[in-house]
């Protein structure tokens, strides 16, 4: 039980994918303008992360390892990710057209979100079991969601700030993310 708690705390806070490992920055900057779309993106990414962590574990253990094809991990995982993302995309398009529209190109781009591949590869290299892998994937997604949602709420507030013209928009968002990253360093050494 404590094991699982450690995995969660580690993946959400200490090794936060966005602010500590700097993975998945593309959707982090791109979809954080509005709280609503950030929440949608968070849900989608967490879903994809958890599902790919599970699926890639299965593929890894059931197919690649018995066949001695570990060197094919990256390609196989990308295949898994692409399929899961495509599935998610269809699902969202059907259930929430506005969200689909708002997420725009970032939804299919979850495929190339390095956090997703990162989780799958890290899981494989750490020799985690199925439960741990899934939890790790979920934790990574939750960490991503946490900072993305907070960040979008903050960007909504910054929208009305009197920011000097050269720093408006993405520039100040990057600075904010940088400062956040500093703050998250406070979590180092927790586990």
């Amino acid at each position, binding site marked *: 039980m404590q094991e699982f708690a450690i995995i969660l705390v580690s993946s959400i806070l200490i090794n936060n994918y966005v602010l500590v490992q700097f993975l998945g920055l593309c959707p982090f900057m791109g979809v954080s303008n509005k*709280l*609503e779309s950030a929440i949608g993106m968070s849900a989608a990414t967490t879903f994809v992360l958890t599902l790919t962590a599970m699926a890639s574990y299965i593929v890894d253990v059931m197919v690649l390892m018995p066949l001695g094809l570990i060197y094919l991990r990256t390609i196989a995982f990308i295949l898994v990710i692409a399929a899961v993302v495509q599935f998610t995309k269809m699902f969202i398009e059907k259930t929430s057209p506005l969200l689909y529209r708002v997420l725009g190109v970032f939804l299919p781009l979850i495929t190339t979100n390095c956090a997703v591949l990162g989780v799958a590869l890290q899981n494989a290299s750490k020799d985690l079991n199925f439960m741990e892998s899934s939890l790790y994937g979920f934790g990574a997604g939750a960490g991503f969601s946490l*900072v993305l*949602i*907070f*960040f979008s*709420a*903050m960007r*909504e*507030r*910054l929208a009305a*700030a*009197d*920011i*000097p013209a050269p*720093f408006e928009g993405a520039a*100040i968002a990057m*600075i*904010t993310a940088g*400062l*956040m990253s*500093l*703050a*998250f*360093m*406070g*979590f*180092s*050494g*927790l*586990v």
Partner: protein
Amino acid sequence: MAFKQITSPHAHAAQNTSKVMQLVLWATVPGLAALTIQFGWGSLINVVLAVVTAVACEAAILKLRKRPVAFYLQDYSAVVTAVLLGLALPPLAAWWVVVVGSMFSIIIAKQLYGGLGYNPFNPAMVGYVVLLISFPIQMTTWITPLSLLPDGVSHPGIIESLGIVFSGYSPADGVTGATPLDVFKHSSGLVVDQIYESNPLFSQAAFAGVGWEWVNLGFLAGGIVLLATRIFTWHGPVAMLAAIAMMSLLFWDGGSSESPGSPLMHLFSGASMMGAFFILTDPVSSAVSNRGRLIYGALIGVLVYIIRAWGNYPDAVAFAVLIANFAAPFIDNYTLPRTYGHTDRRRATEKEED
């Protein structure tokens, strides 16, 4: 006869932002005095150096942005930021540490966001964290409190202190030492009673830790004055202190060797009181509603304790405040007060009332 068209209300209370800021400055005096008495002239030098740098930076940026410099400097916000940073830095820190921190606070954390009122993070704490991560050695070298100095040794005088600050030599070995929070961080093998007996930091203390208890009492006194003058509400500070007390009580563990310290020790060590009354009460970067401030304060308290107890850093107020700043806009969206005539609280994000 023609008269001006002016919106109501026509009457105004006599309060103004600059007076509020000045009151905050006066309220730091007991804390500053305690720091100076207990740890020598270093803190005073820090404060002066930080204020000069901050005001200069603020003026330069305002000039650059073609804003009326005098008008904006009059709000004293840069001075407050600098004073808080100066108080937080270790006494006798090298001059460039103070200057870099102060510059970072004003330029990056405040003016890049548009100046007073727009900064999402507490500028003083941004400066502090940047320094802590960049210069860990300088930032964790604390002076030994006055009463624990060996016989015949005293804190450097003001001239000598200036020499130390500007020459960059570190203070003499006998003058620096561990803080109570450091002691607990690095003494995992001992039960609390043993620590209390063996370490003069505790054995000679009145109730929490030599030197630090007075500094914290100083800030507590200043904070109570501010509370009494209704500069801020009680919600944030009380929630934070209560959260620290609860957490330390929960993990007190009967004083075993695993214990991260007693509630009293945590409440009166490090930057607890200063954080509670001077840092998290910074209204710009905190949550806005009273309920939001309760959550915000409690979040800081919990984070402070977690990082102090299990993280790499002995004190954590700055990190906790920044993380809570980050969460504040989100908290605000879900902690609107119930408006007169409405049965339920609303969310800031909802389009139609349920």
